[in-house]
């Protein structure tokens, strides 16, 4: 098989460029660490200035509740001030994200039931912090008027009993399937058709276009060498992701084998797709621009960061043909739910068909002349 010589050539060249492989591993891991820590699921540590002008019992109870939030979910931390103006100026000056003002007649109005109020000034340009503060302060206010705890449950009241089907998945753990897919994407951008573009750029392509290698030999050879390197990258990123975020893998060889299969299928699909788009490019700059563009349009609508169900209709339609969406879905099912082949059968079918179609088009459209 002459394609094996193409594979050998490519792999030898990669072996002598380890920096590019190292960078392709580091990038998804950095992404995992940065995204996992900056895009936290729950908001924490917002500075909240509190000015309490009331010494009554309900103001004290409200302060207790606020301190409970500060100690528990840690949504905010309290800075006690004695002056409303200083607190609001502090918000305007960016020192605090919000200022809570408890007026002197707060307790009195609760007792007299004459619309008691507290004031919350927030920096609403930061919608996420402002929303979280509103929610946390509303929660603290809700509790203060309960005078007693009911001894007996009300039998007519409806309770929601929430049952988790799977073990709890932390936010950073939930990113691992996405970063594995990102590693695959990175791999497919530095192997396969990229090497063809580089050869064309350097004028080296002439040397093998002049040999009896067929279109199939060239495309297959480059795709298979790309598959080898990319699979290796994805596995390294997967193992590091699992170790960093502490995902317990209890499915044994079956689970690992299925994950391996999804990685291989996704890699083959993406490598072939890149061949269709970049098979005639002749400058690495084109690959660079294309890579940034494709990463955005494939990665974010893949469900790796946010659920596809919440997308608008047009983006959902795109997600239906996005191979990364199927890959993320399959990996999430395998990593977090254990081995459930019937749950990923649809994903595997799509990825297999996608690979077959893109590979065929890639070979057909590859131009063997200059």
């Amino acid at each position, binding site marked *: 098989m*002459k394609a*094996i*010589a*193409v594979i*050998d*050539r490519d792999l*030898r*060249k990669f072996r*002598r*460029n380890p920096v590019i492989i190292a960078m392709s591993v580091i990038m998804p891991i950095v992404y995992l660490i940065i995204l996992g820590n900056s895009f936290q699921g729950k908001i924490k540590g917002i500075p909240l200035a509190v000015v309490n002008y009331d010494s009554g019992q309900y103001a004290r109870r409200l302060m207790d509740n606020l301190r409970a939030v500060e100690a528990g979910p840690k949504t905010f931390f309290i800075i006690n001030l004695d002056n409303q103006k200083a607190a609001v100026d502090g918000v305007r000056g960016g020192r605090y994200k919000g200022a809570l003002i408890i007026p002197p007649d707060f307790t009195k109005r609760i007792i007299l039931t004459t619309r008691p109020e507290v004031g919350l000034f927030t920096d609403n340009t930061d919608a996420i912090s402002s929303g979280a503060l509103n929610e946390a302060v509303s929660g603290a206010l809700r509790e203060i008027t309960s005078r007693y705890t009911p001894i007996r449950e009300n039998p007519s009241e409806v309770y929601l009993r929430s049952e988790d089907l799977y073990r709890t998945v932390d936010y950073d753990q939930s990113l691992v399937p996405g970063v594995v897919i990102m590693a695959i994407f990175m791999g497919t951008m530095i192997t396969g058709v990229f090497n063809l573009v580089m050869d064309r*750029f*350097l*004028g*080296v392509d*002439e*040397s*093998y*276009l*002049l*040999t*009896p*290698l*067929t279109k199939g030999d060239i495309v297959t050879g480059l795709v298979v060498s790309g598959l080898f390197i990319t699979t290796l990258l994805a596995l390294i990123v997967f193992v590091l992701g699992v170790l960093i975020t502490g995902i317990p893998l209890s499915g044994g060889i079956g689970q690992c084998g299925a994950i391996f299969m999804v990685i291989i299928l996704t890699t083959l699909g993406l490598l072939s797709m890149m061949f269709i788009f970049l098979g005639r490019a*002749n*400058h690495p*700059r*084109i690959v660079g621009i294309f890579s940034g563009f494709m990463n955005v349009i494939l990665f974010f609508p893949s469900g790796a960061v946010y659920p596809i169900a919440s997308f608008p209709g047009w983006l959902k339609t795109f997600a239906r043909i996005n191979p990364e969406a199927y890959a993320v879905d399959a990996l999430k099912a395998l990593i977090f739910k254990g081995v459930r082949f019937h749950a990923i059968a649809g994903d595997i079918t799509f990825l297999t068909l996608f690979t077959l179609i893109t590979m065929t088009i890639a070979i057909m459209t590859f131009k063997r*002349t*200059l």
Partner: protein
Amino acid sequence: MREKPFAIEVSNLTKSFGNLIAVDSVSFNVGSGEFFGFLGPNGAGKTTLIRMLTTLLKPTKGSAIVASHDVEREPAAVRNSIGVVPQAMTSDMDLTGWENMDIYGRFYGIPKKQRRERIVYLLETVGLSARAHDLVATYSGGMRRRLEIARVLVHRPAILFLDEPTLGLDPQSRRVVWEFIQKSRGEDSLTIFLTTHYMDEAEALCDRVAIIDYGRIIAIGSPDELKSQIPGNDIIILTTKGIPPDIEPKTKAIPYVHNVKIEGDTIRVYVDNGAQNVADLIEEVKIIGVSIEAVEIHRQSLEDVFIHYTGRSIREEEAKKVSFLVGAGVPSKLR
């Protein structure tokens, strides 16, 4: 008895890139075992022609049979029979010399043992045995070129195409390349198709040469035949201080003068028997009013033939195409 077929048969071969006709209805044959040179100024269409003959470019019109196979209908068979050294350096810098040759041999499906023996022999012949296992990135330009010529001989091709193989090489490396090509020719009865714009190279190596300009063949024959076709066997080159406007017709009127070419302050006078006539010519030209600074006589060379046919020593090249999308940096594929 059937005559030995031609190694290369080209008939009305044409290649256009939009409005630009790079090769214009070219026809010629190259005999089996012949060393054929293709001469032309930069941008004359040499590389385009070689790319059509080696299946890298599809001709716009006409036909070419290479090693008894049609380049358009049987490109795979053509590629199996030829070895091509393109103008640009095409060896992989990240591979060693040996790896470059070995992988190339595998592209042709040569069995391992044969491949190994052939590579050892070829590397020895081009003087690269000691550096065989070093990365090509560490080679000099001359070493890289020698490796590339050796590489295309791994599969023992019937026809070897060399597109300006000595471009940019120092005189020592050029000589080594020449010797190697001649040695290989003798051993393997190779047909060699060489494009060059080094006239001394063509004169020293080629059995026949064709001169191409603006995509058309304007002269073809052995170097001696071409030289004899030009009137005046010798050339007297006069370097002057300024040239009066009527110098050309007046000099041409001298009986032993066959032709006059003026290039800047230099007058090339094609004469019979240069050594005898030089003193008389100087007198005649002085009478016309030319002040002579230097005189040189030499027997006609292929370069004189070339200049006779192509007219100027320096040629304005066509502007290279640069992509509007990605700018400069893409090696030109058009010529």
